[in-house]
């Protein structure tokens, strides 16, 4: 079953073409990579999928339903969660609150339940908390549940952000450079973590990454873009030896 299908996606920023004619199809349970040099338009693709930008042209459909034109919170409610290149946690809230809050689109109680503290409210708040606690346990973050994210190490903040994304029970997880800024010891751990999430949660993952080690060891399929245009597609081995990719990353050697 196709999870995500993007057809002829094009994005202009006041005349500047950030992405042109982008196509991709993600199947259920796939782990796919998106790479490219700086400023190639990778994050633009993610911003378009998560509804943060409205595309100039093109169609995005998720589980067979078109999602172009939806607001970001509606896209999340449909089942797409993401992390950010520069970690964006709510820094003055506890880690637990951060993770609980990502369930905001599926609270299951209304404002009346909230003011009168009805049974439904108590039960749902309990369930929301339990799910968050479960995630904290899985990610071994239980000890920092009451800490504020800004007091945690960079690596832990990354983990919290991924846990927060999973808290909204997504079908598709978008990871925007999860290894950025991590020391190499943590990168190995991150690779294991992503592989484990992929297997355990049985969801499709689409990741942007600069570090070849991460993409090559995780992704079954990789798309390479440069200047908003797809220049190569294929398995990690194919990509590694693709002349256009080498050119984009290392420059033209026939100067």
């Amino acid at each position, binding site marked *: 079953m196709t999870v995500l299908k993007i057809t002829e996606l094009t994005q202009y920023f006041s005349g500047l073409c950030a992405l042109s004619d982008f196509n991709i199809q993600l199947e259920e349970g796939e782990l796919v990579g998106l790479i490219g040099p700086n400023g190639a338009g990778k994050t633009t693709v993610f911003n378009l999928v998560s509804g943060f930008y409205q595309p100039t042209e093109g169609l995005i459909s998720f589980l067979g339903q078109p999602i172009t034109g939806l607001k970001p919170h509606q896209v999340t409610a449909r089942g797409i969660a993401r992390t950010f290149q520069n970690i964006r946690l709510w820094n003055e809230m506890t880690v637990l609150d951060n993770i609980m809050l990502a369930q*905001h689109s599926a609270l299951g109680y209304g404002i009346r339940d*909230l003011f009168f503290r009805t049974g439904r409210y108590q039960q749902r708040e309990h369930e*929301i908390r339990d799910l968050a606690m479960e995630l904290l346990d899985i990610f071994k973050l239980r000890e920092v549940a009451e800490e504020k994210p800004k007091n945690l190490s960079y690596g832990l903040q990354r983990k919290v952000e991924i846990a927060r994304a999973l808290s909204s029970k997504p079908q598709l997880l978008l990871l925007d450079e999860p290894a950025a800024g991590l020391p190499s010891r943590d990168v190995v751990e991150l690779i294991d973590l992503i592989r484990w999430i992929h297997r355990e949660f049985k969801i499709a993952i689409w990741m942007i990454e600069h570090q070849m080690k991460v993409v090559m060891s995780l992704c079954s399929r990789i798309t390479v873009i440069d200047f908003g245009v797809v220049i190569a597609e294929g398995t990690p081995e194919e990509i590694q030896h693709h002349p256009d990719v080498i050119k984009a990353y290392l420059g033209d050697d026939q100067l």
Partner: protein
Amino acid sequence: MTKQKLSVPFALLALLMTVMVLAQYEVIDLYIQTIILFIGINIIISSSLNLVNGHMGEFSCGHAGFIAVGAYVSSVLSVALFTQDRVFGAPLLPPQYAFIGFPLVLLAGGIAAAFAGLLVALPSFKTRGDYLAIITIAANYIIITLVINIDKIGGARGFMGMKRVIFAMEDVAEIPWMILWVFLFTVLSIIAIRRFVSSTYGKGIIAIQQDEVAAEIMSVNTNKMKLIAFMLSSGLAGIAGGLYAHVIGYVNPKSFDILKSTEALVMVYLGGMGSITGSILSAVLFTLLLELLRPLQIIKWVAIPLLLIILMQFRPEGIMGNRELSDIFPRLKKFYRFK
């Protein structure tokens, strides 16, 4: 568990009974009673503005506009319903029902103010920060100018007759009614705000304050949450306005201008952004300070802004910061959990 559940309501009830008995037997005079009433009203004003400026991190400077809407709507309703008035004629309902009708009239004023809150909620979808501040000041002026231009409710002269509603209540039972109502609505307002911001639902506005983009992308419907927070905040301000009008017995559009909005802002920043106990504490301090500085007359408006400047220099986060009293004195949690 029982200790935690009952000690606070019991303490509040004891406080209410003490004040009411003291007022009933005139141990405390009318002047002190009025100050106590103002403290209650200011608690509602500061904690409701804190919801928007503190918890949600928007910058609303037109709170007095919503206080005015609540004051006028509830005053006109209560005067028209329960008293013989020159403009509105004979009472529409028997005056002896005033004591039942009064809280409903206050709620009606709050609902009207909540809808006036849309005036600032809708533009807040597109802008925030300085621009929203200007829009809220504009909203304040729109409301005051509207009131001045409606001659039926007194225009610039003001509107009176609310004392007769109090007399109608006192005809039923000779007790200090306003102390009861102010106390009741203050407690209910604080409970409402506390329940809102301590739920996962309401924490959506705290997420907006800390990172609006992340909030929207991580499943918070930011527009809806802003709408709810602005309406709750202005609705409670409206209730405070209704109480204020009935305590004074007279309302004038001038008392709801930008100076009143500034008072509300001072209380929020004095107490600490996003701290409910801070808002309560600062409302108490600020009301007492205003009364102590009354002999200075207009010069007090030199002293109070000066206080704000000094505060911003030495303790920019306010008295409480964004903590609650129970964070500073964890033992209090034994009696009551504030978060």
